[in-house]
């Protein structure tokens, strides 16, 4: 059990490429922190630096009270679950789990007890004598988790552990990981590019982009108050709609180039260039045709529980997504009238992309 602190952690590669620009992060004991971001944002690099697989070129990483910058990976008391499982193909699943303990000098009895306990938790009892290649993808990932659990480390590191699994299994394993982490209460860092995975798993979400932590907070905080345009567009599926506009002189409306006005509830100066962010689920369909926004239906996707409608707002925005509960029938090019609620709108500065 330990906290994990990153202080101005930087990574510059030998060719001069700066992958991480000073990351500051405090992860509390027992917390599950999720690093999420598009590929190339530095999230995996950061995880590998915590593990000791990449050198730290600036700042420090602390596990508990120890600075681990110069400590060998095997001595950091962390365990990692890899994307492609990284099981030792020539060993049985039992030996795979026992390997780390054996090298740390645990007694045979202790190793056996720990492996059997982990196997019971992960329902692997019947597969211990087999080789990894005789198992399915989900079972292999369980063995990889078992290998991490038996070590009883201070920190678990997960590097996109579910991305090699099929969709159904991914949802099951996601729940299983969450359960397991809560049950063991081990501080964990989880890397993913899948924002649904990130939202569902995280106690704390770290949205990364271009080597910078754009926002750190609880999933709901980030969903409700995204700090930047990037975070707003990345978190939430389908993504938030962005409409460029200007704050009207009365400061209580946003005006768009075609004269449409939306009521605002923000403290913002008049005449400022802004981008208005509206989540697809925050439009209200006005059946009586009485509302500020007029749009044409371009395409409809019916998912059963909800319907996604792709709309054309004309010059304001040609590709706007609307999410409605239940099933709806719309004709192509049908005119819809929509309204919004002032406190559900997000305002971003058009130049800096920062939340207003």
């Amino acid at each position: 059990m330990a906290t994990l602190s990153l202080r101005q952690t930087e990574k510059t590669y030998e060719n001069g490429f700066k992958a991480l620009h000073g990351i500051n992060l405090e992860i509390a004991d027992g917390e599950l922190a999720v690093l999420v971001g598009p590929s190339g944002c530095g999230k995996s690099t950061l995880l590998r630096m915590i593990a000791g697989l990449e050198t730290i070129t600036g700042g420090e990483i602390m596990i508990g009270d120890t600075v681990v910058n110069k400590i060998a990976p095997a001595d950091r008391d962390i365990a990692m679950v890899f994307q492609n499982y990284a099981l030792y193909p020539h060993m049985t699943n039992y030996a795979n789990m026992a390997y780390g303990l054996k090298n740390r000098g645990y007694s045979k009895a202790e190793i056996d007890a720990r492996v059997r306990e982990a196997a019971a938790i992960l329902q692997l009892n019947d597969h211990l004598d087999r080789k990894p290649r005789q198992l399915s993808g989900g079972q292999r990932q369980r063995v990889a988790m078992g290998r991490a659990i038996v070590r009883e480390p201070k920190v678990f590191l997960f590097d996109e552990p579910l991305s090699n699994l099929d969709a159904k299994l991914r949802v099951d394993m996601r729940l299983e990981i969450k359960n397991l982490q809560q049950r063991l209460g081990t501080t964990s860092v989880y890397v993913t590019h899948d924002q649904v995975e990130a939202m569902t798993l995280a106690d704390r979400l770290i949205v990364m982009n271009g080597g910078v932590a754009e926002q750190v907070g609880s999933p709901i905080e980030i969903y409700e108050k995204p700090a930047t345009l990037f975070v707003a567009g990345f978190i939430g599926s389908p993504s938030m709609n962005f409409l460029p506009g200007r704050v009207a002189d009365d400061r209580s409306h946003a005006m768009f180039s075609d004269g449409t006005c939306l009521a605002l509830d923000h403290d913002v100066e008049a005449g400022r260039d802004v981008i208005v962010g509206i989540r697809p689920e925050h439009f209200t369909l006005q059946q009586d045709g009485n509302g500020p926004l007029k749009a044409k239906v371009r395409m409809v996707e019916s998912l059963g529980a909800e319907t996604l409608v792709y709309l054309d707002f004309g010059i304001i925005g040609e590709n706007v997504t609307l999410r409605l509960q239940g099933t709806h029938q719309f004709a192509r090019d049908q005119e819809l009238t929509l309204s919004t609620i002032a406190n559900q709108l997000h305002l971003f500065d058009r130049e800096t992309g920062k939340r207003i």
Partner: protein
Amino acid sequence: MKRVQFGHSPVPYLFVAPQILIILIFFLWPAGQAVYQSFLLEDAFGLSSQFVWFRNFEDVLSSDSWAKSAVFTIVFSFIVAFLSIAISLFLAVRADEIIRGAKSYKTLLMWGYAIAPPVAGLLGSMLFNPLMGDLYILLNSMGFEFNHIQNGNDAAFVVILIAVWKQISVNFIFFLSGLQGIPKSVTEAATLDCKSAERRFWTITFPLLAPTTFFLMVINLTYAFFETFGIIDVSTKGSPGGTTATLVYKVYVDGFLGADMGSSAAQSVILMFMVSILTIFQFRFIERKVHY
């Protein structure tokens, strides 16, 4: 109705015909000749011959010089195979770890592959030339009384040195590609599980290289058995007193220099038999212990 076809086109047979001809003329016919000749006793000029059943075999198997050569061949082959595998594995592991200038290291280590065995033999015999050979002079100046012209062990050392050196580059290439075939995440997982790099090598890397090692063992034993002919012929010619003559070299010496075709043929038949046994043994017993 399906028609049973008898009139196949002859074209496919034409395509394989050259290969079949080559096998017939250069492999099966000489092999048959060897078996036939092994039952004959011929005079030195090949003018008359007599069918003697297994007398050639009895003579060969009961002769001291053949037994000596057989022992030398086995010891020589295992030493050459072991050393060239061990050294090249070491080099490949080290070259794989290098990040800067890796390409030039690898290219340099592969160069030896391009050298033909007789050329390697020639290089070796020049290095050990008693009048001007650098290694000969070096070893003697270091206090070893090195004389491969008269001392059988010293001569064996020379042949083994050349044979191993020649084979390292081939093994190196295979080991390097074998090492690169090990998923990076597996080695990384091992770094988290085991602190000692040496232990990691023996418990993870080496077992994962087992298929490569097994394959190379077969290749290297065959190499030491047969392909070192060129090296021996150019460097020691089996001297002193046949101590560095492998079975293959002895076949050549007895048949083509000694003109005893019957004995030479009998030896090569025995050799064929030994190689078949060796191959069966390797694939039956050793391959089972290899983890794929």
